Each structure stands twice: as C-alpha cells, then as structure tokens.
C-alpha cells in the first residue's frame, strides 16, 4: 500500500504551549488510519493542521490525492516554494478551503457542524458546490436555466439521494439537519464530507456519543467508504472497540509526541501506550499489568 498523506516533523505551538511536538506519520491509500491518545494529546491539533485551520509552527504535510508520494518530488516541490503541482500538495502552505477543494481532504468536526437550518438534502448539495458552481457559469448560466446547469444539478441531487439512502436518512431528506437525532447528525456529517469527493476523509471522534448499535452501524459505514468509494480514512477516536475493530493502522500520541505507530494489535500490546493511557511511567507498566492480570 502506498501512502497518500505524509506528515513530517509537525510542530504546533500556541504561545508557550507546544501542543504537537515533532510528529511524523503516514496515512496509506485504501486504509483506515486511527489517531489515538489520551485527552489533550494533540490529536485535534494535528487534524486542524492537516485541514489548514491552523498553520503549523514547523513541519511538512504532503498529500497526493491520486498518485503516489515520492520523496524526491516532495523535496522538489518544497524547494520550488509552490503550494502544489502535478497532483502533489504541501498542505501547510494552503488555505483551508483549497485543501478541501484541490488536495481533496474533507473532514468532520468533534462538535457536529451541520448547516442546521438547512435540510439534510441541502447540506449534501452545498458540499457539491465546486462542480455545481462551475456548471452554473458564474451563476449566469444558472440564472438562465441552461441545460448544462440543469444536468449538473440533477447529478448532484442523484448523488445526494444515493448518500441519503446509504445512511438511511432518505425519509428525512427534507427535514432541517438541526432537527435530526444526534446519531443521524453524525452520519449526515460524514455523508456531507463524502459528497465533497475526498481522497482522504478525516473524522474527528465519529463514534462520540453513539450507543453500541449506532457504533456498529458507523463501523460498517466506515468500511464501506474505504472499500466502495476509493477514499482513505484518518480518524480520531476514543472508543477503543471501534478503533481496534475498524482501523488498519494506529498512530498514538501523548503530550504532543508520537509514542507508537503500527498495526492495532501491536499498538495495543505496546507498554508505552498502556502507560500513556494509565498515566504511569513505562517501567511501572509491568507491575500494573501483573496486578490487573493482563
């Protein structure tokens, strides 16, 4: 599997506080990569750097939506000073909306950010702004009701319908998003992000607040996105059953540093990870493991 996102030596400081300290990892194409760690480990900050909401203090974030990441090409791009070319992008140089539009990175938010006064359907149509906007020809073709725009609109509605059916919300398509139950809102936000055609979908705690049934549905949805929609996933999650069940690759952060990186089973057995979650130094882990019989 080739990587499509490479984060190198990412550092983010807020005043005197270093939230992320020299973190490097990769997300591979066709895989689900989980970013875990205790509260305050810097996971969401990493997300915000990748998606351009924060400008990192230092480090490089390379993204290749279609092709492969090639170290020589990344270095050449870095030297050129450009934001991106030939399907390769340096995200730390791009504003947030360009990252979504050109580098094809979409995201959801920890506290759901739907357009609550717009219907579920409208939410999914807004996410297809880019293709619709170019079809509407600076809105002039759209104003005139040109066939080209009508075709594009129909295609957008079909896509929205398919996603609403996929997340079992087709009956509530015309309800305001803010009126949907919490679990439905979570799924709708994922569908909305998918309507933006991402190569990499970043999910910030998608299982937070879901009951076990909804969590199981979510796991199935994430797998379907990976297997059927040609998108790779990067997710922050606290629910370990979801993480271990769904992810192909796990990166663990603690106090802004990466402490482990590997397959779920390997990470689970890593003493450093256990120590981080239990809040004790590494050398005491063995003792604790004995105590709890692990």
């Amino acid at each position, binding site marked *: 599997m080739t990587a499509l996102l490479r984060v190198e030596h990412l550092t983010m400081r*807020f005043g005197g506080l270093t939230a992320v300290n020299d973190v490097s990892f990769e997300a591979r194409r066709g895989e689900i990569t989980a970013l875990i760690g205790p509260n305050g480990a810097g996971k*969401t900050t990493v997300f*915000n750097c990748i998606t351009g*909401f*924060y400008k990192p203090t230092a480090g490089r974030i390379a993204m290749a939506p279609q092709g492969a990441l090639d170290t020589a090409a990344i270095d050449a791009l870095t030297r050129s000073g450009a934001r991106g070319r030939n399907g390769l992008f340096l995200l730390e140089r791009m504003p947030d909306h360009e990252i979504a539009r050109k580098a094809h990175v979409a995201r959801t*938010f920890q506290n759901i950010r739907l357009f609550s006064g717009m219907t579920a359907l409208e939410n999914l149509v807004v996410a297809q702004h880019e293709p619709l906007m170019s079809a509407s020809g600076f809105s002039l073709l759209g104003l005139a009701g040109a066939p080209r725009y009508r075709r594009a609109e129909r295609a957008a509605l079909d896509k929205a319908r398919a996603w609403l059916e996929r997340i079992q919300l087709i009956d509530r398509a015309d309800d305001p998003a803010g009126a949907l139950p919490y679990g439905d809102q979570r799924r709708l936000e994922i569908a909305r992000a998918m309507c933006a055609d991402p190569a990499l979908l970043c999910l910030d705690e998608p299982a937070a607040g879901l009951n076990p049934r909804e969590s199981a549905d979510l796991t199935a949805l994430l797998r379907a996105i990976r297997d059927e929609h040609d998108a790779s996933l990067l997710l922050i999650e606290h629910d370990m059953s979801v993480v271990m069940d769904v992810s192909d690759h796990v990166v663990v952060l603690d106090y802004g540093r990466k402490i482990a990186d590997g397959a779920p089973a390997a990470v689970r057995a890593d003493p450093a990870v256990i120590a981080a979650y239990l809040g004790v130094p590494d050398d005491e882990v063995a003792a604790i493991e004995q105590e709890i019989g692990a």
Partner: protein
Amino acid sequence: MELFLQQLINGVTLGSIYGLIAIGYTMVFGIIGMVNFAHGDVFMLSAFIALILLLALQQMLGVFAPVLSFLIILVGAMALTGLWNYMIERLAYRRLRGSFRLAPLISAIGMSIFLSNFVYVMQGPRNKAAPPMFDKVIKLTSGSSYDVTLSYKQILIVVVTASLLAVFWFIVQKTPLGRAQRACEQDAKMAALLGVDVDRTISATFVIGAALAAVAGVLYLTYYGVVNSQDGFVPGVKAFTAAVLGGIGSIPGAVLGGLLIGLIETFWSAYFSADYKDVAAFSILAITLIFMPSGLLGRPDVEKV
C-alpha cells in the same frame, strides 16, 4: 514648537474624554462580548442631564458657586446616567445573552437610534449652549506669533479624569465586585456555578460604564459648552476606536487608546485638514480591526474549530 505644545495640551484633554467613554465599551465587551453601540448616545444623554441639572441649579435654586455646582452636576449625572444604563441593560440586552451573536448588537443599534431621537424629541433639535464655567486661561509661553495657553477647563478635565480613573482602578482591582467582573469575563457560566451573581455583576458593569461616560459628558459640556442630541454618534465611534486601538477588553488599553485618538485627531486637524479629521479616526478604526484586531494591549483571539 508653540503649535506642537498647544496641540499636545488640546490632544490630552480630548483624549481624556475619549478614554473615559472607551472604558464603557471595553468593559461591556470584556464581560459579555458585545459591542455596546448605544454607549455613545448614553454619553450624549449624560451631557444633557448635566446641562439641565446645571440650569436647574442656577435658575431654580440660585446656586452659582462653580466648584459646588460642578460637583453636584457630576454626581447627579453619574447617578442618573447609571440608572439609565442599568435599565437599558435590563430591558434591551439581558434577554439576548443566549441569543445569536449579532442580536445584542442589533438591539444596541436600535437603542442608539431610540436614545438620540428621544433626546431630540424631548429637548428639540437646536444646539444647547451651557452657561460658561471655569473660563480662566493660563498663558504658558508668549511666542512671537502664538501664545500657548492652558485653560482651567483643561486642567480640570485632566485632574478629574485621572482621579476618577484611580478610584475606578481600585474598584476593578481590589474589590469583590472587580473580582466577580474578572471571573465573569473568563467564564460566566463557571462564575455562576461558583456563586457569583452574574446578572448583578453585569448590571454593575453597565452602571460603572455609564457613570464614567457621564463624567466624560460633564467634562465635554464644560469644555465645549454646547451639546446636541446628535452628538453621541461621532464621539461614540471615536471612543470605540480608542477601545479597539488599545485592545478591546483591556482597561489600560482603553485609556491609552483614548489619549492616542485625542492626540491624533488634534494633530491631524492642526497639520493636515480639519475637514477630514473624522476620516482619520474612522480610518484608524478600520485599519486596526483589519490588521491588528487585538490592539495594542489586548489578548489575541484564537479561532476555535
């Protein structure tokens, strides 16, 4: 040089008045995150209250002693303007605290329109000239062409401003009320859970802000000797500019910003063009908000995602 010195004196005088008004903007913004658009009109109202009190003293009670009447109108205007702002907060803003962010601003714009037109309707459209007070002037230097003067009024303004700021600083720094204010500024919900009466603290903030605006109103009236119902808008915007320039939310910033705006305005008028003096203030407002939104002494605002 003489011109420079004279403008320095005039600028500090004007800046003291702006600084006093700016504190009201900055405190309210600090505690409930709202641009209190009506504050300039509260200032104008206070100048009217002071004018009427002064006339009442002279014509109804026959009190003419300048220092005594000054003190009476100062205290009277502070108290009555405080009452006004207390009621304004109760009726126009309190219900909007949980509402969307622009709701209190729109309500405040409505309140600003109401206040200026209320005074217009009640007191008529004309400029109202106050009986002159503290008219003596000290000649500092007598140059060949230009005398630098320092009037009693200017001394009075700077002295009153400085002493009231000291009292105010004591209240904010050393009293339980000041502590409650700072707690609400940090996190009103948490402060409420810890037993701070948030409503009362916010009311007190409005009353104090209005009292300081009233001081500015009285000083404005003594300095210019004339007031009109439309006089709230421009000084209000300038004082807001001062608050923004100093760093909104920061009280020393408001005073510093006020002095700077006062100086810039007088020097601009003296050396460039008096016609465009308001353009200077408005441009500073726009430039500060665009390029330096946390001002000189404010805290930067990190966007939460």
